[in-house]
């Protein structure tokens, strides 16, 4: 384990003593709730916590959820994602040498995910069919004693937060000219009964478009128009 990796795993914005205390608590078998590194663009929208399940509805969001932990030196895994885009993952900063793929777990998807959750920090699961409450409960109870995060691409009965892309536009192509350059998407985060939270993100790289920037852009667009 290199020291550069260790330093990267700590969040410089918070007290080092607090972070070490959290880790000691995790070592003493209370891993749930430990923060898991998240991409800066997503960090204030959905800060990931160990032992939680997050549901997403697009592959881009699933990759973005795993990218932060992978950049911080953790292992990540993808189960059931047969159409995994390796180059896109690498562009987002996912370290391919610390990535485990199970493209087609078939009927064993539950056992495979449970085994991956044991050893990896972030596991992205694309369940093959609709998942009932009981099956989800089995995996969730396992997850609570582990220090990892489950990201489900699809529907999940009890997710801590659900992320979905509400509206998406591409900058670049017109009628036969240009090329895909930048994607702007409005992402909605729903947590239980709380009012949904919305944020504008841009790809590639998953950056948060702040409100001020948006207003400036609007005024610039208005002047131009």
């Amino acid at each position, binding site marked *: 384990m290199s020291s550069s990796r260790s330093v990267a795993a700590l969040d410089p914005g918070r007290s080092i003593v607090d972070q070490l205390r959290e880790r000691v608590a995790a*070592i003493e078998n209370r891993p749930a709730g430990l923060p898991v590194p998240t991409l800066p663009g997503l960090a204030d929208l959905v800060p990931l916590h160990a032992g939680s399940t997050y549901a997403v509805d697009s592959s881009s969001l699933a990759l973005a959820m795993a990218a932060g932990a992978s950049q911080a030196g953790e292992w990540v895994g993808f189960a059931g994602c047969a159409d995994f885009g390796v180059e896109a993952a690498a562009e987002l900063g996912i370290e391919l040498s610390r990535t485990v793929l199970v493209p087609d777990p078939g009927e064993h998807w539950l056992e495979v995910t449970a085994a991956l959750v044991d050893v990896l920090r972030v596991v992205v699961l694309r369940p093959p069919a609709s998942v009932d409450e009981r099956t989800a409960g089995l995996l969730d109870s396992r997850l609570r004693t582990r220090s990892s995060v489950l990201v489900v691409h699809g529907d999940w009965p009890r997710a801590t937060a659900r992320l979905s892309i509400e509206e998406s536009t591409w900058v670049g192509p017109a009628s*036969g000219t240009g090329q895909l350059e930048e994607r702007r998407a409005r992402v909605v985060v729903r947590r239980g009964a709380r009012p949904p939270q919305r944020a504008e993100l841009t790809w590639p790289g998953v950056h948060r478009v702040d409100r001020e920037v948006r207003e400036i852009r609007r005024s610039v667009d208005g002047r131009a128009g």
Partner: protein
Amino acid sequence: MRVMVVWCPDWSVVAALDEAEQSPRSPAAVLSANVVEVCNGPARSEGVRRGQRRRDAQARCPELVLLPPNPDRDARAFEPVLAIVEDLRPGVAALRPGLLAVRAPGSWYGTETAAAATVCQALVEGGVWDVRIGIADDLFTAEQAARTADVQSWVLVEPGGSAPFLRALPVHVLQGDGSQGRELVSLLQRLGLGTLGDLADLPGDAVEHRLGTYGAAVRRRARGEDRALFAARTPPPELHAEVSFEPPLDSVEAITFSVRTTAERFVTQLAHHQLVATGVRVEAESDGAVCSSRAWLHPRHFGARDLVDRVHWQLQSADVGGSLRARKHSGAVRAPIDRVRFVPEVVEPAAAHGEALWGSASDDLVERGVARVQGMVGFDAVRRPVLQGGRSPAARQALVPWGERAVDLRPVDRPWPGRVPGPAPVRVFATPPAVEVVDDAGRDVGVTDRGVVTGEPRRFRLGDGVLPWQPVTAWAGPWPTDEAWWSGGAGPSARFQVVGADGRAWLLLRAPDGWSLEAGYD
């Protein structure tokens, strides 16, 4: 210091026959590379010798039992023998499987003869039939004394009598030292030196020059000058933990409640040795006999709470027995339990399992977890993604089976003209589904040989026609390619980036035989 050496001849054969559950009296040999490595007495009396080829050995003795070599098995089988001697006299050193040394028990048993008789008797009672014991001033002499002894017998070399005893021995006793011993024996015999005494009489520096360090060591031993000592092993710690109930308990709840402290003690005791258990056998005794025993494996390592859970599951499932009627009374066990024991079956160093304070779980742990997944879904179902060079998104990546090295990858750092610019697609389809793309008039959109699009793409849908048409809001392209034309490629094709009305973008390929959906920017 007097040394006692206990020798169990042909130990590999004894251990292998025991494992194969065959009679120890049947002629048998352990072969390695089709050559007899070790054979036992019955085989030797039929003419089988060490170093013989398998064919020759079988010709001499057709009923010869052939056994595979396995050093681990030999060492494992020797462990009970060490334990028996250790009970009588601590400080046992295992020299190699089949040979152990211990400081000769002194006046406790009266004489050395009485001590040898006691050890011999204990071993024979323990099921080791062929035991030979030698007692002498030093290790080498004691070993040679044991080798000259008869079955279940012993040879004592008087204090100070090592040199005369060794002088009389023929040089071929050195064959027990492995290949260098055999080489030296052959050389000495060719030099006309028949006994160790002949070697001992030679001048020391000449022996060292001609025969090397090993020869010089043998000469020193033969003169009785070498006081080789041995390192006694530390007996392995007892790691199991047990709890007895008085009076016996007959309810699962009460038992699980009572084993809690024992489980904690078991885990702390292991932790004290910096170990963790990944496999534990839980045994429950009823009326002095084991009534329920099961090995449990843990994906990581057992904590106290995990152990209590296992006891609960084991006793409950033993009781339920699958029948519905019994399920009603699942709180009670079949017979009152008076003892529960935790036996560690697989222990591993705690360092390999610890949740690291800096950084995440160690790579070893991941390897082990992945191996479990491979056990479930098959070796090549777990993949490692790698990048490679190419034009289409599918060609630019490869999924290598976990644990294999990627071979024949195309280099990434070449220009690859014709590849589609822009961000890489998030979804790459291994088998691209067919799509239909039409223009305003509903005609199929094509690309001419000169790379001109025949119409503006307006709508597209998947080829099976289940999903409705989706309008195209923006498109870019074409990026023409003509891949592998020299070896029957698909022919001139062109790629398009198409944005649908829902804001999702797709990468479409127009090949001579139609459109297909290669990748998605979901």
